[in-house]
């Protein structure tokens, strides 16, 4: 496959055609998801709402080319996805909230369960979302809300969570996942960083950043406090009040010492802070690291010995779907996991949950770089045609196994969520 990609569509024509042919074959077989796929006279549009990570023009184009019905994606901020899912479920046909909100989304009763027997690609979905809750037997299970714990339910209209793998009904269809860590400016810091405790190292006072979302920011801080030996959390992903109090009080203490340059709540802030050098170590999301690099500033998504904080996205099926529309949504999600979307996301650093299918569509050189953590044998380009890494570079954090196999904590909504928000507000106001 030639390296020259059409910058506009990102993916080379051949790869898209390959994907289309594969799906066309399935469509011709007329039994995707067990639903008859006679779309000719129907004007069906599948509307999805999700994060910008996975809802963007290129993906929309890919879906529209590959599928016989229309797909319309809307990107929204996390609170809006949740808000709409909870309050206006009829406003979309597929919601893509982060997994950590499943405890809020699923019991709302606005969604129906997926039938795994009607999902041809379900077997390819990694075991993280199934019985074991781990991708590999020797992977870490992780504190907090492991995705498998909120994956299964008792029946199509239930609102509960049951033991993973015990039924065929799943609360949502996993989409993709990734592992988060701290972003650093290696050129300014000048020495190796290998532990979360560096986030609160006084050496970086006035130049550290934290994400402003309470659940996530608190967990990053917790990783730092525990790594620093200050406290041993029973479950970082579900803290007790005392643990929350300790953490928040420490955060306030650091704030008063002037440790935090900023708490960022918009993506651009996190990029800006790094680029300008105002911050040298902070909570970051991987696309932000990419954006910083694209401006010619060196930035590393640092592999740390205590592990990663991980998150996942899931497709929730609104209750109002039925008949042909429901079939279309099943087909869309099935297509999503046949591999072309997987390759598209892999090139941005995300892992779609069906890696074996992704492998089929990702050229070996790129597979080795993105998944195997091997040094790149070619220059690596993003789907938008931008140069991400030169040949010889190794992906930050290395292999899929190293990153997703060492999850210290999952993004979670804790039982003490309300208390957490109050105390976090105090942190902000102090």
């Amino acid at each position, binding site marked *: 496959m030639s390296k020259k990609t059409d910058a*506009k569509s990102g993916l080379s024509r051949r790869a898209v055609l390959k994907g289309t042919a594969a799906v066309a074959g399935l469509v011709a077989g007329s039994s995707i998801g067990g639903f008859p796929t006679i779309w000719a006279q129907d004007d069906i549009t599948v*509307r999805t709402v999700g*994060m*910008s990570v996975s*809802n*963007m*023009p*290129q993906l929309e184009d890919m879906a529209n080319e590959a599928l016989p019905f229309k797909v319309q994606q*809307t*990107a*929204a*901020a996390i609170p*809006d996805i949740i*808000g709409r899912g909870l*309050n*206006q479920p*009829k*406003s*979309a046909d597929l919601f893509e909230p982060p997994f950590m909100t499943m405890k809020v989304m699923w019991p709302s009763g606005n969604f129906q369960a997926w039938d795994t027997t009607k999902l041809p690609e379900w077997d390819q979905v990694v075991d993280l979302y199934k019985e074991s809750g781990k991708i590999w037997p020797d992977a870490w299970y992780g504190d907090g809300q492991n995705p498998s714990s909120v994956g299964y339910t008792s029946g199509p209209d239930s609102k509960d969570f049951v033991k993973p793998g015990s039924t065929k009904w799943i609360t949502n269809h996993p989409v993709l996942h990734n592992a988060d860590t701290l972003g650093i400016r290696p050129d300014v810091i000048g020495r190796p960083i290998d532990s979360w405790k560096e986030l609160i190292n006084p050496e970086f006072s006035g130049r550290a950043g934290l994400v402003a979302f309470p659940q996530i920011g608190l967990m990053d801080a917790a990783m730092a406090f525990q790594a620093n030996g200050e406290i041993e959390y029973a479950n970082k992903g579900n803290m007790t009040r005392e643990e929350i109090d300790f953490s928040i009080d420490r955060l306030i203490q650091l704030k008063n010492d002037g440790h935090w340059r900023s708490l960022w*709540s*918009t*993506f*651009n802030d996190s*990029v*800006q802070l790094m*680029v*300008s050098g105002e911050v040298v170590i902070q909570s970051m999301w991987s*696309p932000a690291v990419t*954006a910083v690099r*694209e*401006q010619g500033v060196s930035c590393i998504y640092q592999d740390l010995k205590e592990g990663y904080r991980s998150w996942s996205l899931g497709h929730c099926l609104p209750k109002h779907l039925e008949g042909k529309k429901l079939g279309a949504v099943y087909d869309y999600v099935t297509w999503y996991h046949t591999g072309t979307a997987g390759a598209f996301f892999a090139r941005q650093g995300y892992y779609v949950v069906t890696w074996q299918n992704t492998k089929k569509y990702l050229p070996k050189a790129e597979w080795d770089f993105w998944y195997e953590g091997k040094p790149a044998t070619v220059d690596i380009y993003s789907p*938008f045609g*931008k140069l991400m890494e030169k040949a010889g570079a190794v992906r930050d954090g290395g292999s899929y196994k190293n990153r997703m196999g060492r999850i210290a904590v999952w993004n979670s909504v804790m039982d003490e969520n309300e208390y957490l928000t109050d105390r976090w507000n105090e942190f902000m106001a102090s």
Partner: protein
Amino acid sequence: MRDGIKRAPGFWPRAALFYLYLLFLYGPIIIIVILSFQADNASLSFPMQGFSLFYFGEVFDPHYIGDYRWPFGRSVILGLIVMVLTMGISFLAGLAFRKNFRGNIVVFYLVVASLVCPSILISLGIGIGFSNLGLTSQWWSGGLGAHLSWTLPFGVLIMLAVFSRLDPRLEEAAKDQGATKWQTLRNVTIPITLPGLVGVALFGFTLSYDEYPRISNVAGEDNTLPVELVNTLSLAATPTIYAIGTMTTIFSLFIIFTSFIVVYFMQKRRRGFGVKKISADG
């Protein structure tokens, strides 16, 4: 010395403050214009990366997240609808208030309450109302209502001020001459209150076009421009938003400029009608 009028003491400091204020007001706009001319891969801040029309192209043919074309159209249309409705409702309300009807104090306080009510509250409340009815709020239903709750107080307050200055004798004179209610309305009341109405229209459109908090929860499936902007900001905004800013600024300056010229020529031609005198009274 202009027209032989002496400048009051403190004129120069005040003038300086005024122009400094304009600079302050337009400062960010200048930044927006400058930064909108960057080349691909640019950020929202300095240093400036390259020089090109790339992001203007992005407005019409987006490759990154944030397709602002439809939201922009929606905001304009919503703004116009809100503008017309606000003008109409405020005008009628102004007429009613003149008569000091029973309960006018209550309605007045209602209007003020609508103004000061925290926007999040209204947004949440409308959203809940719709979802309890099993409906989905859209920008032209719940969104429209949310915006009206914001613009109507401005409109009503302005019309109240305008009407209180309206000399009733002018309308009485018309009636004495045999005009019917409608004729009085059309030929006396409306022309005199026109500047106020234009003010209401201006406020109505501007407030709606730019409004975010009240509509944030109730815009429905399709975003207005501010909602789309805030959404993309929290994700990964590019200088495309600056390109939009530049374009809207040029557009609005153009509108103002043209209307000024039009009004100027219109006034020149109507000099003999005496209408100018009344409206010149400010």
